[in-house]
Structure formats: structure tokens, C-alpha cells
């Protein structure tokens, strides 16, 4: 398993929480995008530089070459299903993807994405609200997802503040390295987080 400290990677600009929404273009994918599609097994031993070039290549061969930092991946149900690989969110993050918004996520992908600092937002209905290239704004703090062109706003349950802090720090190892330990527990979240 390659768990590179987030501090070594190219820091992706993350405007979580008070920093305002993420703004970019939407790349649209369907249901059941697996970790095999995100991070094909045959490149498992290659470097992140090589691996990221194969992200989603069998679904959209242009993706790795044309995705721009700040773009947002919009997908259907069960995004990131399949075997647990930290390399799956790592590839997206390394390509500069600012956020993945999906109708739903597979458990391990969601865990790994937060662990390595790739913003994710489960937002039921997102996949049918966007076409490729649409302008998209994602506010991780409020859970609002906006189709800029259509003026449509989807509201989803934001991730709890504790998880957003991990994301904005760049992942769990970055949180540890920052020395801000033990501050993500009950006192931050209190009974507010996710209680709604």
C-alpha cells in the first residue's frame, strides 16, 4: 500500500468550510465506478505520476489528460466500489480534481478519500443534474451543489465539521503532522455534527 504523506504531494487548493465554494467544470460518470476503473490494478506498482494518467481511462480516455485542477467529478451510485485502495482517491487528487460529488459512495472509497484529503460529497440526485462541462459550485460546508448554467441548486447533508477539517488540512497524515491532535473529537463536533 502506498500511503504517501499528504504534505509531500502537490497541495490541491481546497476551499472548505469558511473558504467558500469549490468552482469548476463537471466531469460526469454513471453508477458503479469501481476502484478498478479509478486505479487499474495493472499499474498498482507504478508511481503516482504514472498511475494518475490511467485514472478512469477505460470509461473516458480523455479524462486524465484533459481534467483541470479545480474540476469536479459528478457520478451516480456507489462511486468507488470494489477493493479498498488508497490509490483510487489519490489518483483523482493528484490530477487536481477538487471534489467528487456522487449520488452515493462505497464505504471504503469514502473512508480513503477523507484519509488522503480528497473532498467528497454524497448528494443524491447529483448525477442527473449535470451534463459534461457544466459549471459546478460545491459548498462543502453547507452541502449545496449548484449547476451554474441552469441555476439549479441541490441541497445535501454536508459532511460533519470534523471530516471537513481533515479534508481541508489535506488528509489524516497532514492533520497529524500539523500537530493539531485530539481536537477533532467531541468538543468540536459536540452533538451538532450530523445530528440533523
Amino acid at each position, binding site marked *: *500500500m502506498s*500511503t504517501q*504523506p499528504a504534505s509531500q504531494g502537490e497541495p490541491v487548493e481546497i476551499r472548505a468550510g469558511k473558504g467558500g465554494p469549490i468552482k469548476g467544470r463537471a466531469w460526469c460518470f454513471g453508477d458503479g465506478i469501481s476502484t478498478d476503473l479509478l486505479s487499474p490494478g495493472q499499474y498498482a506498482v507504478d508511481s503516482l505520476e504514472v498511475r494518475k494518467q490511467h485514472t478512469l481511462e477505460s470509461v473516458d480516455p480523455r479524462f486524465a489528460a484533459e481534467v483541470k485542477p479545480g474540476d469536479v467529478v459528478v457520478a451516480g451510485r456507489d462511486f468507488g466500489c470494489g477493493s*479498498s485502495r*488508497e490509490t483510487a482517491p489519490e489518483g483523482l487528487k493528484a490530477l487536481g480534481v477538487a471534489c467528487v460529488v456522487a449520488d452515493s459512495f*462505497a*464505504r471504503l472509497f*469514502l*473512508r*480513503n478519500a*477523507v*484519509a*488522503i484529503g480528497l473532498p467528497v460529497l454524497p448528494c443524491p440526485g447529483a448525477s442527473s443534474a449535470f451534463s459534461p462541462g457544466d459549471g459546478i459550485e460545491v459548498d462543502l460546508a453547507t452541502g449545496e451543489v449548484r449547476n451554474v448554467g441552469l441555476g439549479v441548486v441541490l441541497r445535501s447533508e454536508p*459532511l*460533519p465539521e*470534523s*471530516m471537513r477539517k*481533515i479534508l481541508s488540512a489535506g*488528509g*489524516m*497524515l497532514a*492533520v*497529524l*503532522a500539523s*500537530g493539531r*491532535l*485530539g481536537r*477533532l*473529537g*467531541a468538543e*468540536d*463536533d459536540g*452533538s451538532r*455534527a*450530523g*445530528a440533523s
Partner: protein
Amino acid sequence: MGMTLAEKILARASGKDRVAAGEFVVAEVDLAMTHDIFAAQVFDHLVNAGVTQVFDREHTVVVMDHLVPPSTEAAAEQHKRIREHVARFGIDNFYDAGSGICHQLLPERGHVWPGMLVVGTDSHTTTHGALGAAGTGIGTSEMAYVLATGTLWFRVPETIRFDLEGSLGEQVAWKDVILWIAGRFGSDVAQYRSIEFAGPAASQVSVSSRLTISNMAVEIGAKFGMFAPDEVTAEYLAGLESSGVVEGWQQRFAEKRVEADSDASYLALHEVPLEQIGPQVALPSAVERVVPVGDAVGTVIQQAFIGSCTNGRLEDLAAAAAVLEGRQVDPGVRLIVAPASRWVFQEALRQGIIEILADAGASVLPSGCGPCFGGHGGLLAAGERCIGTHNRNFVGRMGSAKAEIFLASPQTVAASAVAGHIADPRELLPRSVRSGAPRRRAREDKSVYTASQPG
């Protein structure tokens, strides 16, 4: 609306009165375990981040179980690094090579209690649901975070319930029941869900067999796989106290005991009719490719394996010995036994079980994972077949990607080792009952399954 076991445990651990499925919480972890495959990396992360202490030394457990004893220089170096980390962080609950498999040691050495939230850098951490704990696997970055902060985020899972009804037949094991469930409901049925194993027959299941079932809950996707703590659990904990492993079990049990509310909400309820379940076999190379043993009988094997965190316990070795007593392993078969812990090995020695196994022709490995994950101690060549009591039969799991792995109960594996091909343990009468009938000859390989499919 009431709460399920998973909801109760996550509510308590996150300091809330109630939580509901779908909610995210930050919870305090009660017990964290890492083993020799990942421990060095986890502690490296901590050192790199400047962390000098773990959140709770009493509830951090490090186990050397996969690479024991080291069979390569690299493995030995890795163990050495882990020992250095263990000394640096002052981890008292350190089980060095030969102590046993993590998922055996946690319940055997009194680390797991009902109601606990347990995380491990191992997918089979669901095992600890057997004692009514919410146990689940996490990644190495996450474990570093847990060891540093004692907290982790969780999404509260929906729960599905399997109600065990009726009673088990002769030579049928609870392993057969979890295999049957995997075959019947598929490997996705519990994806991201918690399972409660309940129903009138749950009280018939020993803790040893509960560990087997909860262990394999992850093979059908589960995040947790739990039995509500009951009299069986209480008796087990009392036993740990009388053998000097724990103290004050009654009080701790009363404090931590959890039950699902009667009006808890379940995503699905499934009945498991035990009378209809005979010995089962999972065919290569997916755990859900399960057939009644009769459909696989006659498949020639070269190796039989009894061990792992699924079925390497005393009860399992005893069940295998009952089949093997007075019999000989077929000359074409290597029978490998790996007791799940040193204590299991010692008990099996005292009870004469090891002698029976050795007399039958078994090789006994040190207590650890052995060949379960293809590390060492019983790998397979191309074209070979193994039937084992472990939990995964994926392509390449035990050596060659061209080998085939079948999963079954200890009884079925023992009967197959004697026959030289997959055999129904119900057809092997206890030795004392058998007349001097000649041994059945290995039938021709029927190849009832197609060659293994990758992935």
C-alpha cells in the same frame, strides 16, 4: 424508534443519546489493533508526524501473526522495526511471533468486551462482533490517526438481521451456516451494513463458532457482524476470569452489555433454516460460489489446511480430530494444521488432539496465519487444489494464481484429507462404529466446477 446494536454502540462511543443509520459521527475508539503487515507503516506515520504517545496504551494491541516465524530476511527486518516501535511507544499489549493470530488473541486474552468499538488494520476485525463488540477494519493512515487521537469518524450503518432457526445436523458446523449464507445471499448483501445474527438458535452457538461467523461477515460485505451479548458470552467471560485472564468480568459485562431495542429498524430480516443446511463448500475463486458438499465430492486435492482466524480454534481442531482419529491422511495430500494461538496449541496438546492429528499425518505449524494468505508454510503450485477452513479463496491467495482453493468446515476438510478428494464428513462414520470395511477409493475427479475465474 429504537436502536440496533450498531447504533447503540456508535451513539455511546460518540457521546450521544441516539444516532440513526446514515448519520456521520466522530467516535472514541475503545480498542485498536494492528499486526505485522501494517504496524511498521502505522508507527512510521506517527513518528513522521512527531507523535510520541499512543492514545491509550492499555487499549492498543500489536500482534506479530502473519509472518511468523519470519521466512525471509525482509520479514525479519520488518519484525525488528516493529519491536523497536513497540519499545519506543511503550506498547504493553504486544504479542510477538508465535503467540497467535490477532483475531484469536483479542478475545482469548480478554481485550474485547461486549459493547466496545474495535478497529484493526485488518478486514477480519469484524470477528469481534462475536462478543457483541462493533469491530471493523480501517486503513493505515486511519490507524495512525486513531493511535494519535483515539477518535475516528464513522457513518452509522444500516443493519440487516439473520435469524437462525432450528438446529444443526450431524457433522454440520457453524462454518457451513456462514458459507450457506454467503452462497444464498451473495457477497454484497451486507455492503456497508451491520449484521446482527439473532433468532432462537443464536443461543446454541458457542463463542468459538460465533467468532467463525462474525469473522466471515466481512466476506458478505459487512462493516460489523454481531451477536448480542447473552448467557453464552457471559459464560465465556466467566471462563476467562477463572483461568486468570481477566478480572471482575461480571461488573464489566453489566456495564458494557448492549442489546438492540425491540423496535429497532432493520433494512432486511432473513431467516436461516438450519435444518436445510448440510456441509457446504465454497468453490474457487469466490466466497459466494457455495454448493452443498455433495456437488463437490470427488474433486481431487493435494493440500488440506485447518487453521486461520476463521477456524483454527480448539473446537475446530477437536472437530477435525474426531474425524481423523484412527485414520490416515491420503498419501497424495499434505494436511497442514495451524493452531490459532499458542494457548490453543497447548490445550490441544493436553487434550490429546495434537497427537491424533499428528498420528493421522498432519504437519503442525507455529501459531499464526500460516498459509491462509499465501505468505508461507503451505503454498500451492499451478494446478494444485487445496481445501481449507479459512475465509478467502480468491485467485492467487495461497501461492500460484493457477491453484484452486475450496473453503469448508474443519470436519469436511479432515474428511477430504483422509479421502484424498473432497468428501462429505457425514459419510465417514466415527472410527469406533466402522466395521472393517475397506477404505473407499478416491473417486474420479468430477470437476463439477469450472476452472477458476480471475477476479
